[in-house]
C-alpha cells in the first residue's frame, strides 16, 4: 500500500520543478523587479534589526538636550528628536519590535488559518458550514475594537494584542485557503491518492498544501503589512508597552508633540512604516503574479509562438475578384477585401481578404465552424471589434459610403438605424438591471424624437411586431423574468427600433430550444417580408441556411472559400470544406445513415498553412494546393470558389441536383 502514494506524488503537477534554481531566480527577478526590491529591502531591514547594536551609530536612549530637534546632518543623518536622541539609531532599534510584533500576528494567522482552511475545503460538510458562520460573525466586527478589549484586560500587553489580531485576521485566510483547497480536492491526482488509501491528513499536508502555497504566501505577505501598520498605530496611541525601546509608532507620537516647532521629526518614522508596509504589499503582488503566471501562459504568448516568419509577407494576395464593385449589384452592403488583425507591432490576421455583398431585401448566410472569423466579420461591419482587434485593410461600403474611411462617427451613424444586430445569447444581451421597457424605450429614444407616451406606444408596437403576447407585461418585466425565446424576440424588437436596412444576426437561434428556433426563424422571415429589410445571418447550421437564406458565403480560417446561391451550395458544393460541412450536418444528412464527422480542427489564426488553408483536413489535397496563395475564382454567374482543383473534383452535395 505504501508504494502507491509515492507514485501519485511524482505525478502531481505541483510547484514548477526548477523553482528556486539560479535560472528560475534570474527569470523571476526580471519579471518582478518591484518584488525583488521589496524582498531586498525587507532582508536589509531584518539584518539591521538583528544587529541593531552594531548598526546604530548612537545609543538610542542617549540624550543630548543641547542638540535637540536638529534636522539631518553629517553627525545625525536623520537628525535628533526633542531630547536630542539620534533618530536614525532609534529607527534602527525600532525595527525589532515592529517586525517581531508583526511576526507574532503572522504566526497565529498562518498557524490557525492554513489548517482550518484546508480542513474546511477538504472535508466540507457540517464543519465547513459551522466555520463559515463563525467567520461571517467575526468579519462583521471591526478588529481594532476587539483588540482594545484585550488590551484593556491585559494592559499594555503587545503579545496579547498581536495574537488577537492574528486570530481575527485569519478568517480571511481561511476563506482563501478553503476555496483553493476545494478546487485542488477535485483534481485527479488527489482523488487518486484518496482512492489508493492515503490518509486524509497526509493528503492535506503533502498534496493540498503544496498546491495552495501560492495563495497562502500572498495572504501572509499582505497580512504582515497590515499587522505592522496595526502595531505601529497601537504604539502611536501609547497603549502598548515596548519595554522602553523606541518604536516607529511611538516615535511618530513623540513627533506629534513637537509638530508646530519641528516638522522634520514626523518624516523618518512615518516613512519607515509606509515603506515597510508597501514592501510587504509589493511582495504579495509579486507572488500573486508569479503563482498565477505558472498556471496558464498568457494568451498573447501563445499567438506569438504559433506564428511563423514569412506568413505576414504572404498575406496581401493577388485578388481574383476585381476591386471596387463586387459581382452583385445593386448592393446595400459591399464588403471588399476586409482584413481584421489582432495585436500591436506583430499583427496576427484573424480575418483576411473577405469580400461579399448583400443586396436590398436579400438574406445572406455566413457559414462555417467556430473560429473561422464569421463573428469578427459581423462585428467589423458595426465597427465594434473587441479591444486589441482592428480592421487594417479593405472597405465596408454601406449605401455607397465607406464606413472604414469614416471611422467611429460613420459607424455610430449607421448602428441601429442602418445596420442592427442580434446576438446568440438572448438573455445575456439584455441588461439585467433595467426592465425590458426601459431598455427598449431608451433605444427608441436614440432613433426618434418622441414623448414618453410616444416611446411607450412605439415599444408596445415593436413587441407586437415580434409577436409577443401581452406586451405590457413584458415591458414591465426584468430580463430574468422572461424566457430565452421571449428575450430573443425582445432583442429583435430592439434591433427593429431604428428601422434598419440590414439586420446582422449572429447565431440568433443556436442557444434556443428547437421549437423556439423554428419560431424565431419564422419571425425573421415574416419581418423581412413585411419590411424589405436585408439579413446577414451567421450560422454553422445548414438547417438555418436552408430555412432562411438566399445566398451562402462559406468561411474557413478567416477567409471566404466559397459563395453561391443556397440551392447551388446544397446541390453542387464547389469547395471540399462546404461538402464536408454538409455531410457532417445532422439536418441535411441522409436519414438512418451514420453521421460522418469532419476530422481535425480549424487552424488557429497565425498558424494558417500556406496555400489552401483547408489543405490539412482536405481529402483531395495535392501538391498544387499548398504551392501558393489561391485566389477566389468565379465558377459561373454569382458563384465563387477558392478550390484550385474545382474543375477536376465532383463533390457530393446534400441534395440531388
Amino acid at each position, binding site marked *: 500500500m505504501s508504494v502507491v502514494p509515492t507514485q501519485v506524488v511524482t505525478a502531481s503537477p505541483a510547484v514548477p520543478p526548477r523553482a528556486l534554481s539560479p535560472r528560475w531566480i534570474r527569470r523571476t527577478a526580471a519579471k518582478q523587479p518591484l518584488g525583488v526590491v521589496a524582498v531586498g529591502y525587507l532582508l536589509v531591514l531584518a539584518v539591521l534589526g538583528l544587529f541593531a547594536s552594531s548598526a546604530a551609530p548612537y545609543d538610542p536612549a542617549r540624550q543630548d538636550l543641547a542638540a535637540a530637534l536638529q534636522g539631518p546632518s553629517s553627525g545625525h543623518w536623520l537628525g535628533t528628536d526633542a531630547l536630542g536622541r539620534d533618530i536614525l539609531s532609534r529607527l534602527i532599534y525600532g525595527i525589532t519590535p515592529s517586525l517581531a510584533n508583526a511576526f507574532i500576528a503572522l504566526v497565529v494567522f498562518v498557524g490557525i488559518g492554513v489548517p482550518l482552511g484546508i480542513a474546511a475545503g477538504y472535508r466540507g460538510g457540517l464543519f465547513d458550514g459551522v466555520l463559515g458562520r463563525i467567520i461571517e460573525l467575526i468579519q462583521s*466586527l471591526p478588529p481594532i475594537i*476587539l483588540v*482594545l478589549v484585550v488590551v484593556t484586560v491585559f494592559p499594555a500587553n503587545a503579545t496579547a494584542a498581536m495574537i488577537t489580531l492574528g486570530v481575527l485576521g485569519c478568517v480571511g485566510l481561511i476563506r482563501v485557503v478553503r476555496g483553493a483547497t476545494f478546487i485542488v480536492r477535485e483534481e485527479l491526482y488527489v482523488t487518486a491518492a484518496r482512492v489508493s488509501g492515503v490518509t486524509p491528513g497526509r493528503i492535506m499536508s503533502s498534496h493540498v498544501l503544496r498546491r495552495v502555497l501560492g495563495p497562502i504566501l500572498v495572504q501572509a505577505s499582505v497580512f504582515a503589512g497590515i499587522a505592522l501598520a496595526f502595531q505601529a*498605530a497601537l504604539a502611536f*496611541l501609547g497603549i502598548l508597552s515596548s519595554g522602553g525601546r523606541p518604536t516607529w509608532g511611538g516615535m511618530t507620537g513623540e513627533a506629534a508633540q513637537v509638530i508646530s516647532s519641528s*516638522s522634520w521629526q514626523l518624516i523618518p518614522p512615518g516613512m519607515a*512604516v509606509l515603506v515597510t508596509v508597501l514592501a510587504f504589499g509589493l511582495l504579495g503582488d509579486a507572488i500573486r503574479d508569479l503563482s498565477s503566471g505558472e498556471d496558464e501562459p498568457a494568451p498573447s504568448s501563445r499567438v506569438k509562438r504559433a506564428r511563423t516568419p514569412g506568413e505576414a509577407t504572404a498575406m496581401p494576395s493577388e485578388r481574383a475578384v476585381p476591386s471596387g464593385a463586387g459581382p452583385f449589384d445593386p448592393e446595400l452592403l459591399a464588403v471588399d477585401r476586409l482584413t481584421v488583425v489582432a495585436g500591436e507591432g506583430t499583427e496576427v490576421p484573424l480575418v483576411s481578404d473577405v469580400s461579399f455583398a448583400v443586396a436590398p431585401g436579400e438574406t445572406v448566410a455566413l457559414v462555417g465552424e467556430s473560429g473561422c472569423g464569421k463573428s469578427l466579420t459581423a462585428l467589423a461591419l458595426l465597427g465594434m471589434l473587441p479591444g486589441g482587434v482592428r480592421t487594417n485593410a479593405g472597405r465596408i461600403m454601406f449605401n455607397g459610403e465607406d464606413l472604414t474611411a469614416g471611422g467611429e462617427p460613420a459607424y455610430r451613424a449607421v448602428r441601429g438605424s442602418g445596420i442592427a444586430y442580434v446576438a446568440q445569447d438572448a438573455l445575456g444581451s439584455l441588461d439585467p*438591471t433595467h426592465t425590458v421597457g426601459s431598455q427598449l424605450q431608451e*433605444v427608441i429614444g436614440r432613433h426618434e424624437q418622441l414623448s414618453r407616451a410616444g416611446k411607450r406606444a412605439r415599444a408596445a408596437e415593436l413587441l407586437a411586431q415580434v409577436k409577443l403576447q401581452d406586451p405590457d407585461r413584458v415591458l414591465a418585466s426584468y430580463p430574468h423574468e422572461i424566457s430565452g425565446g421571449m428575450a430573443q424576440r425582445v432583442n429583435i424588437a430592439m434591433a427593429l427600433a431604428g428601422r434598419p436596412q440590414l439586420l446582422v444576426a449572429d447565431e440568433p437561434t443556436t442557444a434556443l430550444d428547437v421549437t423556439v428556433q423554428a419560431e424565431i426563424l419564422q419571425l425573421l422571415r415574416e419581418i423581412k417580408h413585411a419590411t424589405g429589410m436585408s439579413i446577414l445571418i451567421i450560422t454553422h447550421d445548414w438547417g438555418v441556411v436552408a430555412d432562411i437564406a438566399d445566398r451562402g458565403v462559406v468561411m474557413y480560417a478567416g477567409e471566404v472559400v466559397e459563395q453561391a446561391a443556397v440551392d447551388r451550395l446544397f446541390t453542387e458544393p464547389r469547395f471540399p470544406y462546404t461538402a464536408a460541412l454538409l455531410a457532417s450536418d445532422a439536418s441535411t444528412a441522409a436519414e438512418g445513415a451514420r453521421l460522418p464527422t469532419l476530422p481535425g480542427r480549424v487552424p488557429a489564426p497565425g498558424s494558417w498553412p500556406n496555400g489552401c488553408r483547408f489543405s490539412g483536413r482536405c481529402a483531395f489535397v495535392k501538391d498544387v494546393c499548398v504551392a501558393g496563395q489561391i485566389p477566389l475564382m468565379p465558377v459561373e454567374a454569382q458563384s465563387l470558389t477558392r478550390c484550385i482543383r474545382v474543375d477536376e473534383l465532383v463533390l457530393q452535395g446534400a441534395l440531388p441536383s
Partner: protein
Amino acid sequence: MFRLVLRRLAWSIPLLFVASLVSFVFVAFLPGDAASALGGANATAEQLAAIRQELGLNRPLWDQYWQWLSSALHGDLGSSLLSHQSVTSLLNQRLEPSLSLIAGAVLLAGSVGIALGVRAALRGRLGKVVDAGSIVGLAVPDFWLGLVLILVFAVHLSILPPTGYSPLVDGPGAWMQSLVLPWITLAVPATAIIAKQTRDAVASALDRPFVRTLRAAGVSERSIVYRHALKNAAIPILTVVGLMFVGALSGTVVVESVFAIPGLGSTAVQATSSNDLPLIQGTVVYFTLIVVVINIFVDVAYGYFNPKVRLA
C-alpha cells in the same frame, strides 16, 4: 426585500451576543485576579475591592454575564470605572462626532473612488495609475497621514484648525472645517480600494454581451457606461463601500485620537489606557450596533440595484 432586512436583523442578534461575550471570556482567561489587572500595579486594597464590587468579579462568570446582559437589554451598560458616569449617556454624547466622521469620509471616498474607477475602466493608462495609487494609498499609515495633513494645512498654511470638533449645532461651517482633515485621512485608503474595485467591476460589466447589443442598437457610450455598466457593477462596488464604512469605523479609533475628536474611537482608546472595562464593553456594543445598521443599509441598496434580490 422586507424579508431580507428581517433576516439581517435576526443575524444581528448572535452578532451582538458574541461581541458582548468576548470581553467576559477574556476576563475569565485572565491569570490571577482580574481586579488587580484592571486596577493597575499601584491600586490599594480598597480600590481593588471597589472594582470587584462594581464589576461583580466575586460572582461566577455566567452570573456576571447574565447580570450585564439583562441590564444591557434595558439600555443600561453599567457605569465607567473612571468617571462613574453612565456608559450609555457617555457614549451617546460621542455618537455625533463619530457618525459625522464616518459618513463624510465614506461619502468622500465613494464619490472620488467611483469617479476615478469608472474613468480608469475606460482608459488603460489611468487604470495603471489607480493600481499604483491603491497600493500606496493602502500603505500610508493613517495616524501619520493625519499628522502630515495637520502639519501642512494647520501649522504651515493655517487654513484649517489642527484638532478638535465643532458640533453641528454650532454651525455647519465650523463643523465642516473641523472635519475636513479627518475626512481626508480616513478617505485616502478607502478611496484607493473603492477606485480599484469600481475599475474591475465596471470593466467586467463592459465585457458583458448586453453592452454589445446596446452599442449596436445605437445607444451612446455615455449611457452604456453610466446607465448600464455602472448599474451592473453596483453590487461589488456597494459591497466594498459597505466594508469601507466598517473600515472607517475602525479608523475612528486612530483618527479621532490624532485630531482630538471626542468620539467613540477616542473613547475606546481612553477606556483601554485606563483599563475601564465597562466603558470598553459599551463601545463594543455601540460599534456592533453601527455595523448592524450599516449592513441593513447595504442590503436595502442591494435590492435597489439587483432586481433579482428585490423579489427574494
